């Protein structure tokens, strides 16, 4: 139960941060990406604030050694730059630039329950499922179900 409460509160604060920073509005995000238009630098300030506080928190977590509520700090372990990372980041960037939404802001916006945002989140889930299915097929042709569960290394 404490784990659930901690996760809920973390999600709540994360969502509040996205709302306050303006990052739930696709036009603010697209304004940052539009370097040939009326450039809006806000996203850089959001990233700076988020990365600075995260660095402090992560340093503290490393010094403590273990998390408060569970046995182990689950740091991502991979450091290689492989083809799926590069291709995946490029495809993600294309979708992000097309609509101005990434997963966090999309889920926060779901609270408004508008048709466009529902379409986006359903398509996003379908895209994720599609990738999982495609990976299973590639790893073991014919035996897709339950095969080769790749750990989500980075987040």
């Amino acid at each position: 139960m404490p784990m659930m409460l901690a996760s809920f509160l973390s999600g709540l604060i994360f969502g509040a941060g996205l709302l306050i920073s303006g990052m739930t509005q696709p036009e603010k995000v697209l304004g940052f990406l539009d370097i040939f238009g009326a450039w809006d630098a806000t996203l850089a300030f959001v990233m700076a604030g988020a990365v600075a506080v995260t660095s402090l928190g992560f340093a503290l977590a490393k010094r403590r050694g273990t998390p408060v509520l569970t046995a182990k700090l689950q740091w991502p372990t991979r450091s290689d730059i492989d083809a799926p990372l590069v291709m995946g980041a490029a495809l993600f960037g294309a979708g992000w630039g097309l609509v101005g939404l990434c997963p966090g802001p999309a889920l926060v916006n779901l609270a408004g329950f508008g048709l466009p945002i529902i379409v986006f989140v359903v398509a996003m889930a379908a895209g994720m499922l599609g990738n999982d299915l495609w990976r299973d097929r590639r790893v073991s042709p014919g035996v897709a179900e339950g095969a080769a569960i790749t750990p989500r290394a980075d987040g």
Partner: protein
Amino acid sequence: MHNLTAFSGLFGGALIGLATAMLMLLTGRIAGISGIFGGLLPLRSSERGWRLAFIAGLIAAPLLAALGGMSLPNPTMPASLAVIAIGGLLVGFGSRMGSGCTSGHGVCGTARLSTRSIAATAIFMLVAIVVVAIVRHGIGG
């Protein structure tokens, strides 16, 4: 630069950092939204409890703000549902294939100084800038 909202950006960003730091300090988990959401889907379902709680928190934020008198979010999106669906598919497929999105790679990975995450962040930023240039200004398209 007339649209810049530096202070609320920095403050909101700090809150995102606080949430991320808190999740690691308390539960030992990385606050990567695509990873948290993706882990709720049928094929890679694991640890559904805390994942659902985190996503519920994300959605509760604007609902609580609405109780305080703010209006519910109503994002400006492309007029065509087909374009929205293609964008969503790309965001979902790409974040899963690349093991992360703006939060997992952009915030957490950059804070850890992970070369893998910094490379992913540079790539998705660059591609998004090119796509916006093509869509809005017809450059190269």
